[in-house]
């Protein structure tokens, strides 16, 4: 059998040029390649699985953080990104279809479209990340929000002024006198209305903020406790829970790692695009297109789960 393969390979049949000597048929070679790709994808699933586990543990223990902080994210942008990735998955699967059918020109077009949708995804991501950077919605000690959640889109006006129509603002403002009375330790650090009282001028940046929880605060978030004016606070969203920066740590790690995967995928698709333009692929050999497609679909799969978990918390 090996002799037969060698003899056929020597005759220069197009498919045999891509048939490695240790495979008997192109089909076997293709399926082996696919198996290898699936094994790699399973490692990717486990890779992200660790991050999903971190998410699950933190959300189970501190749902108030997630309920509060996810409002900083824009569901519309997230939804548009989801749509972009789904479209890119379609064009990628279409590209594989074209390669299998030998439609060279459309194959190149579909790969180019996949890259285009990927770029759209990157664009929206850039908008999201740059807004967060500008507004101080970052990880760890860099968490320094310029406004309370739900106010974005109104221009990141520092809510040192208390004229905002936001209900949160008026509720928070109601706690101001008490905050001034306490040694600052009972006031959530990000509540700039009180911070303005501390700092004087209606400006956020001048205030020294810390993400360390104040001592002796007791339970925060959804647990009902007397407010500083003596009334029960009730809904935890109205007041910022401690350690909100954890949400953003998780958010940036998960979406950042996903972003790296998108970039890597786009680079590989670009390589496949160049090879397609050179006519390397056809019905007898389309394995690289198929395998890169599998990777790209996995990137889409991960986003399909990231989107509701980060953006659509209820």
């Amino acid at each position: 059998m090996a002799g037969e393969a060698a003899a056929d390979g020597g005759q220069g049949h197009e498919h045999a040029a891509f048939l490695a000597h240790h495979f008997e048929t192109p089909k076997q070679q293709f399926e082996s390649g696919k198996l290898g790709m699936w094994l790699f994808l399973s490692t990717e699933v486990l890779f992200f699985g660790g991050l999903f586990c971190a998410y699950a543990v933190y959300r189970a223990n501190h749902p108030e953080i997630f309920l509060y902080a996810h409002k900083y994210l824009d569901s519309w942008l997230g939804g548009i990104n989801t749509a972009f990735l789904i479209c890119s998955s379609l064009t990628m699967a279409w590209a594989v279809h074209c390669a299998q059918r030998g439609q060279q020109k459309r194959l190149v077009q579909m790969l180019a479209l996949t890259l285009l949708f990927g770029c759209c995804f990157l664009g929206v991501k850039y908008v999201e990340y740059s807004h967060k950077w500008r507004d101080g919605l970052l990880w760890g000690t860099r968490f320094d929000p310029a406004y309370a959640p739900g106010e974005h889109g109104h221009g990141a006006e520092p809510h040192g002024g208390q004229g905002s129509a936001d209900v949160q603002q008026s509720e928070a403002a109601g706690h101001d006198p008490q905050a001034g009375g306490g040694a600052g330790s009972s006031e959530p650090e990000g509540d700039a209305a009180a911070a303005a009282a501390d700092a004087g001028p209606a400006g956020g940046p001048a205030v020294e903020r810390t993400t360390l929880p104040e001592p002796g605060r007791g339970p925060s978030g959804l647990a009902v406790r007397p407010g500083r004016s003596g009334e029960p606070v009730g809904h935890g969203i109205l007041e910022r829970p401690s350690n909100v920066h954890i949400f953003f740590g998780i958010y940036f790690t998960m979406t950042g790692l996903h972003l790296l995967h998108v970039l890597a995928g786009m680079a590989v698709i670009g390589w496949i695009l160049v090879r397609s333009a050179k006519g390397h692929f056809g019905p007898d050999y389309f394995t690289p297109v198929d395998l890169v497609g599998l990777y790209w679909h996995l990137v889409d799969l991960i986003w399909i789960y990231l989107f509701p978990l980060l953006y659509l918390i209820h």
Partner: protein
Amino acid sequence: MTDATNDNLTGHHPLHGSEKGFVHVVPLRLLLAVWAALMVLTVITVGATWVDLGCLNLALAMAIATIKASLVGLYFMHLRYDKPFNAVILVGSLVFVMLFVIFALFDTQEYQPELIPGHAPMIEQ
């Protein structure tokens, strides 16, 4: 030129699958139908957040996400037509991730009562 289907190098592989090649080609219509379903499900996912079902919201969102993932996996990633072992690999990795998450959740809930009061708001003090 593309003799792959007729040139049985070893002589013992019968043709199966599409006539055009050695592997099944997903019809374009099916790809577009799956894409349309995915877009609709995305809209439903976003719309469902405006309906308050309490803790069911998360379960519903995950259920819809799983349906979408299944569609992508079965049709875009060709698992429906592949040898089952590829699906076993994917499902197996997901099973292990779920085990991972479940055990971590069990563990973290287990120690909550011993943590410093005031820093575990979900546990009654």
